[in-house]
């Protein structure tokens, strides 16, 4: 079809949808709609993982991001019932600063990705690397140290959340 393979077509369609939904996240007036568009974006990204033979990553992406994290986001937004009228509007200075900061983040990301072609990371192992068993072997043999570092980072975040969310013990029992 027009000189492209089916994989290239799928890549193009998924990328278009992901970018479109990503824009819709930003432009929706209603925060609940934003979250739902973000969920759709995650599904498109999971499709990209599938195209790269990373089945495990794709399904875990859906379970963790779409199935758990976004449900909690939705949960909070529904409880707070945000909308334009009650929400304090940001001034234009804040908006410009946010745009500049976001643009610099994009700059850093593009800069770091630009050099990744020479590293040849995408050809690590065989094309079956995305299967659960092969991925597990690689993670726990070749990349054990980074894996453990990541888990310590998560543990630290967990402890921090529990500390922040904990109610202060009531010292004064006489009420």
């Amino acid at each position, binding site marked *: 079809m027009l000189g492209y393979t089916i994989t290239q077509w799928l890549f193009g369609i998924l990328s278009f949808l992901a970018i479109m939904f990503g824009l819709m996240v930003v432009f929706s007036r209603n925060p*609940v709609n934003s979250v*739902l568009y973000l*969920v759709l974006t995650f599904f498109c990204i999971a499709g990209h993982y599938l195209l790269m033979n990373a*089945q*495990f990553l794709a*399904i*875990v992406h*859906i*379970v963790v991001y*779409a*199935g*758990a994290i976004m*449900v*909690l986001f*939705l*949960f909070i937004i*529904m*409880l707070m019932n945000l909308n334009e009228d009650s929400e304090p509007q940001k001034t234009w200075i804040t908006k410009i600063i946010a745009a500049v900061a976001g643009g610099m983040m994009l700059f850093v990301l593009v800069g770091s990705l630009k050099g990744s072609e020479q590293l040849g990371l995408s050809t690590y192992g065989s094309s079956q690397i995305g*299967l*659960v*068993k092969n991925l597990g072997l690689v993670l726990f043999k070749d990349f054990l140290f980074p894996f453990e570092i990541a888990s310590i980072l998560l543990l630290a975040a967990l402890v921090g959340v529990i500390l922040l969310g904990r109610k202060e013990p009531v010292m004064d029992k006489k009420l």
Partner: protein
Amino acid sequence: MCAVVFGLSLGVAAYATLWERKFAAFLQDRVGPDRAGWHGILQPLADGGKMFFKEEIIPNLSNRFLFVLGPSLFMMTALMTGAVIPWGADFVIGGKTYSAQITDINIGVLYLFGVVSVGVYGIMIGGWASNNKFALLGAIRASSQMISYEIAMGISVIALVITSGGTLSLREIVGQQDAGVCNFVWQPLGFLIFFICALAETNRAPFDLPECESELVGGYHTEYSSMKLGLFLFAEYINMFISSAIMSAFYFGGFNFPFAAELYNAMGLEAGSFWITLIGFGAFFTKIFMFICVFMWVRWTLPRFRYDQLMNLGWKILIPLSLLNLALTVVVEYFRGHIQF
């Protein structure tokens, strides 16, 4: 195959509604529905017809698109889970091998989790779009309950996967139970945890807090009428059917049964015969039916939890228990020789 599973899920769910009412009537010493057809056998059709002809109401202040999307999504995810369940052994007709399973993906267990975790969006979107406080409370209860119980369920399934030799394909999990004993023997605690979590994930009593009629009118489906309400109620029965199927496949050998090979030998059936698939399907269905009965028995016996009891059970009892189960499983499997260090 797709159409067969689709029809099967819907048909079983329809007759599960009738069976639920008959079962409740039996437990409460009543007769139950007996007007439509012989012993009420046409009651599901009458119910369905009534649902279709009821007036359809969409609240003025609701988000119309999301209001319709909610029940559709809930129904869709309920039907999607049936795709990876192996309903019977492969059979050969005219030299071609047919599989009694829609697809055997090698991450079947994770696929189930993915679909179940997306299923909660149906309730959340529906409850929020209704623009009603009771519906919103029901939706929020449903989502927090499902997220809490998914963790314990996931950990108990990890233990099961270790027992099954590290495969995530449902066909292989069922297949390695055909000789010897079923997984329940090695995973009694894991099964108990999985069963309790399945009750909570399907929003069945005693975990039906999202629709808790004594506090929340109707919970997340308060504003729904006509067939959109029907979809919500109906999807619950499909979920119950599918989770019974998953429990039979995970812990009770699916379409295998004791002395199956001897029986097939005595009947003179060769491997690949359609009759083997059919008999295996019958055995699988008997197990599913028994689990559906247990679901109903629990519903009509136990009173509903209070919300803090529900959260305590999920986080303080089931999650530590499932971690203990995981540790025990690793020790047991090490001595059985399934794990090498």
